[in-house]
């Protein structure tokens, strides 16, 4: 039985356990000199954190126990993220696997797919990426043109994906591909699990405005995917993709972003924003509001209330909060942390773009929450 309310005694116990564990498990270097770590050191810390999470059983908190998870619900997930946020813990490297690939396979995959993939998602020994966007299909995701042609025993994939995060580190890719040129829109796509370490996959990292190369363009030339790696029905991949996107925009994603916002706003309040206390205090209020909005949405989700609308609001909220925080950091002109803020300010520019731009989130709210027909 998982916890359904934050005021249950079990929630307090769980919180205490997590807090103790996080405090003990956190890499020392991360605790003491986080702001000055190089990108490589950050990545190293993230990988170590992935491993620690798995060993301690915190990797699949809300996954069913038959798939190696703890069988808990959204409340435990959130408590974990709250406590790790309080302790300024890193964000793991296996997150796309844990938050997107795993839950999608659990919800829509076959037993064979679950057995094959889930264990290595949990221990982060296989990193996953998400191959949805294409040069001609961003916000208009249903227009993807990368094709998967039916051949004996599987499919041959041809085409190009772009903005694929972590592609160069990834063993596997969640792919949305076109499998029919006749069927109507939204019923012509399929969802595949593709092995990135094979002939015909060409990953070319793209340099980002912050100098990092986190995303790539990926070219596929006659890349084979076996029938067993089709998720859901053929041509019904759009439905599966929507599951992924609802996870991406959900409460746990928001909670990981709370980790980031917390670190930044604390730094503003502690040091950088000494000349703009009021602005920093307002950001702190918004951070607390985000925390409570996540709590509320999580309890509504645990109570199986209609929480659908929460995803878009959360996404707009966390992305704009982090953007405003890093902007204040940059504007504050704090010489000690100038590089830190420049880095995070630039990185934050992506947040209103990925996992559905904030304009698209606003469209979703008017279309599907307020239900104003066009």
């Amino acid at each position, binding site marked *: 039985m998982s916890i359904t*309310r*934050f*005021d249950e005694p079990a929630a307090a116990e769980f919180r205490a356990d997590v807090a103790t564990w996080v405090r003990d498990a956190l890499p020392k270097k991360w605790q003491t000199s986080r702001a000055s770590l190089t990108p490589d050191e950050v990545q190293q810390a993230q990988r170590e954190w992935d491993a620690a999470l798995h060993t301690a059983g915190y990797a699949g908190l809300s996954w069913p126990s038959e798939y190696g998870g703890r069988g808990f619900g959204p409340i435990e997930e959130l408590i974990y993220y709250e406590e790790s946020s309080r302790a300024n813990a890193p964000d793991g490297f296996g997150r796309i696997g844990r938050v997107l690939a795993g839950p999608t396979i659990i919800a829509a995959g076959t037993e064979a797919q679950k057995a094959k993939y889930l264990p290595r998602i949990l221990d982060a020994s296989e990193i996953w990426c998400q191959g949805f966007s294409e040069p001609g299909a961003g916000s208009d995701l249903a227009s993807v043109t990368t094709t998967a042609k039916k051949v004996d025993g599987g499919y041959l994939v041809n085409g190009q994906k772009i903005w694929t995060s972590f592609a160069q580190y990834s063993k596997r890719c969640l792919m949305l591909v076109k499998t029919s040129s006749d069927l109507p829109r939204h019923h012509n796509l399929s969802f595949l699990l593709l092995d990135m370490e094979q002939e015909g996959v060409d990953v070319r990292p793209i340099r980002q405005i912050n100098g990092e190369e986190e995303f790539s363009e990926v070219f596929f030339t006659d890349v084979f995917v076996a029938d067993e790696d089709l998720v859901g029905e053929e041509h019904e991949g759009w439905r599966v993709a929507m599951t992924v996107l609802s996870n991406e925009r959900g409460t746990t994603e928001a909670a990981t972003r709370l980790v980031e916002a917390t670190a930044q706003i604390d730094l503003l309040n502690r040091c950088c924003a000494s000349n703009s206390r009021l602005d920093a205090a307002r950001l702190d*209020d918004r951070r*607390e*509001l985000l925390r*409570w*909005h996540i*709590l*509320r949405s999580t*309890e*509504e989700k645990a*109570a199986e*209330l209609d929480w659908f*609308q929460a995803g878009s*609001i959360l996404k*707009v*909220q966390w992305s704009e909060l982090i953007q405003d925080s890093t902007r204040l950091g940059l504007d504050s002109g704090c010489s000690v942390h100038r590089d830190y803020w420049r880095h995070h300010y630039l990185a934050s520019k992506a947040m209103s773009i990925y996992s559905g731009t904030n*304009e698209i*989130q*606003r*469209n979703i*709210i*008017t279309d599907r*929450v*307020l239900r*104003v*027909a*066009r």
Partner: protein
Amino acid sequence: MSTVVEEVGTLVAENVHEILESAAGSPAAPNAKIWSVLAEGGWGTISADPENGMELRDILEVARISGRFPYSTPIVSTLLAGRWFELDEEQLAAGVVPALRRGTEIVAPYYSEGVMVVDGSGAPVEAAPLSVESFSLLTPVALLSGATAEIHGSQLVEARAAYVAVAVGCADAVIEQSVAWAQTREQFGQPIKGFQAVRHHLADAHIAREQAWTAAIAAAHEPERSARWARQGFSLVRTAIELGIQVHGGVGFTWEVGIQHFLNQVIELDSILGETQ
């Protein structure tokens, strides 16, 4: 306390909503008749009886509904009074409104026959009723202003949460009205609901309203931060209402369309509660 409402809260809110909706004339007119319907249904006394299990979170639900009908009845102050003070059924059924001390004079912001006026300790006071015009400037929340010294901290916290919830109800009403307006008003030969700038204003109003609701709930949970939550909640509601005015265009700026009833109530709640620390 959970952030999620219990069944009792939903039930009371639904019933109160139905009664307010069927009886309400102008949203701004205090209406003794509506109150008598509510009181006869027992909705005014429901928070006083522990058997009913009505918690603060449930009162927030009712407060939000009542915000759609600003100033119409003393339901929120009565539910809070039933929770705080030892008042008998008859007193509660009369409706409880807060006393406001204005200089040496004690006045009641709610103008209606038979309504009981209490000070911050719950003791009935002799009060001079205000006129309807001045009424709109002094909402039931004056309870907190005139008698702050006599209200102990937890009551103030609860009142803050409840009145932010009232403000969220104001935003609900304005957003509903704005959505309806966007669907019928035509420009350039088409309903303005098709223009994305308008649609995004509505989306932003919705986001602000939902955030304000979170602030109300958080205020009920975090006494030490409740003043901050109230300020933030009122400000977010104002954002939602401002966007509603913008979506209406010139009509939104008219007294006749009535958005000012909601905006004024929020401004008053904010200024009165804003003074309390």
